[in-house]
């Protein structure tokens, strides 16, 4: 484990939160809460765990990332821009007509995006297919799939969970950004999905439960997952929706609401910027 990397990654994640806030304030459309809950998990992937070449997005030796919860696209976009896949100015065009940054990820348009997602429940199946395909070709390329906890209400997720274990996809690491909230309120009240660890263990997965905002735990979980044999790994990351901006935290209302002009300076202040 690279303990010395953690402060650097924490700073990176803070900067990406700032970028998410500015991007969503500019677009005035998009998903704030779930982007902020997922950004630490995504930062660790793009700036430590994933083997990828931003200057060569189609590099055959790359690991793959599937953003199953496609509405957190701003979190993936700011990481891709930071990594150098495209200019950071492009972020200001999020969701605009003619922009390559669609409301939900589009593999045809955005460099670094491998899979079209946005319709919840479909990403894990695609991640399984990529894992099967990469395994057929040999080598040690891995697939990471980031889901939401509300997304787990989709039946297709459990079909995919069944098949990933059946095919012993140990090159697949799925992560649940378990922020406990969905559009209409608390996941537990809308349609409970717990106990997640028991469910995935029963489906034949290796399960790791972590604090999804602790970069030390995140890096350790990704590293551990890579050592698991004959089973896919599920990292259940306990997170806070809207994490980092105090007045967005744990509020379902900020699922699909962007920062207003009035909220922007306060949000940036929470993230250590400005007054």
């Amino acid at each position, binding site marked *: 484990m690279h303990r010395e990397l953690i402060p650097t990654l924490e700073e990176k994640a803070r900067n990406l939160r700032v970028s998410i806030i500015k991007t969503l304030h500019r677009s005035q459309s998009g998903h704030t809460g779930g982007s902020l809950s997922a950004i630490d998990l995504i930062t660790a992937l793009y700036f430590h765990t994933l083997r990828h070449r931003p200057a060569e997005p189609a590099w055959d030796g790359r690991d793959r990332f599937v953003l199953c919860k496609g509405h957190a696209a701003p979190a993936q976009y700011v990481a891709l821009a930071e990594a150098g896949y495209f200019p950071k100015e492009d972020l200001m065009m999020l969701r605009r007509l003619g922009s390559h940054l669609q409301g939900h990820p589009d593999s045809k348009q955005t460099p670094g995006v491998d899979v079209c997602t946005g319709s919840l429940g479909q990403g894990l199946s695609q991640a399984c*297919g990529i894992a099967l395909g990469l395994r057929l070709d040999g080598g040690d390329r891995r697939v990471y799939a980031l889901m939401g906890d509300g997304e787990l209400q989709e039946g297709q997720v459990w079909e995919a969970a069944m098949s990933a274990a059946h095919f012993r996809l140990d090159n697949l690491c799925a992560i649940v950004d378990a922020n406990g909230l969905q559009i209409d309120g608390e996941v537990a009240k809308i349609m409970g999905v717990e106990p997640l660890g028991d469910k995935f263990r029963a489906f034949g997965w290796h399960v790791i439960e972590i604090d999804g905002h602790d970069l030390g735990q995140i890096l350790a979980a990704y590293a551990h997952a890579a050592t698991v044999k004959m089973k896919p790994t599920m990292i259940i990351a306990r997170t806070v929706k809207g994490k980092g901006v105090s007045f967005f935290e744990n509020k379902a209302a900020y699922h699909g609401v962007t920062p207003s002009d009035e909220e922007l300076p306060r949000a940036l202040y929470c993230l250590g910027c400005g007054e």
Partner: protein
Amino acid sequence: MTQMAATRDAYGTTLVELGEENPAVVVLDADLSGSTKTGLFAKRFPERFFNMGIAEANMVGTAAGLAAAGKIPFVSTFAIFAAGRAWEQIRQSVAYPKANVKIVPTHGGVTVGEDGASHQSVEDIAIMRAIPNMTVIVPADAVETAAAVRAVAAFKGPVYLRLGRNKVPTIFDDSYRFEIGKGTVLVQGSDLTFVTTGLMTAQALIAAERLKKVGISARVLHLATIKPLDGDLLLDAALETGAIVTGEEHSIVGGLGGAVAEFLAEQAPTPLVRVGVNDRFGTSGKAEELLKYFGLTHEGLEEAAHRVLERKGAR
């Protein structure tokens, strides 16, 4: 004696040939590999065959992932479970990204037979045709199926290739050249045109022969590819014969008849009669009985020809 062969059998054997030729070809099935004939591929290439169990949504998504990893996945089950159950997965995970996935269901239409309405897909052409980026093909016989399977494997992008359960007359010989998006005029004629797909093309050939005996010259235009539609041959048929009868083993809503109606209404308004399942569900029975019951026969086409000619004459 006409030779009879099932399109699904031609699919199974052609898949094995493709597997030999191209290591990127992989096959997925949802617990119907004996019926869809993908079992032949499974036996020959077990490491490249994935039985996904009775879980079609995941099967289609997994196929999209395999395509994203550079494979050429063929996905098979019955038509109703491919197009129907997994429609939104086909839309989002396959068609939207233009994934190189070949959806090749068998048991399209009412010739599924005894299993009845739950298993008889009469809406799949319509709902697949509505999806952008999708190519929709319904071969007429085993020879065309073998050629079409090869053509879609070479084609880059999503395809819906609909096959049947029953043996159907073989109407093409080995000299036939299949091309995606191109129709074929099998019989020239000047009074009307039968525009047909799938097993109805064999019926159209019989109907044209019988109509000739009563002095009616019927053209037969076989459209294996329903999307993209071969507008050139269709426009010729409309302008040169002035009357069109469509025929398909599918609902008259939204399938070949729907596509032709849309085209004619905009390009060359022409008297049209659609022969197909008349906006209703299927029912149990033997395949041949059901084709007669629903009027999917040469008699049905002939009757439609007389009706369309009356309207043509009244213009």
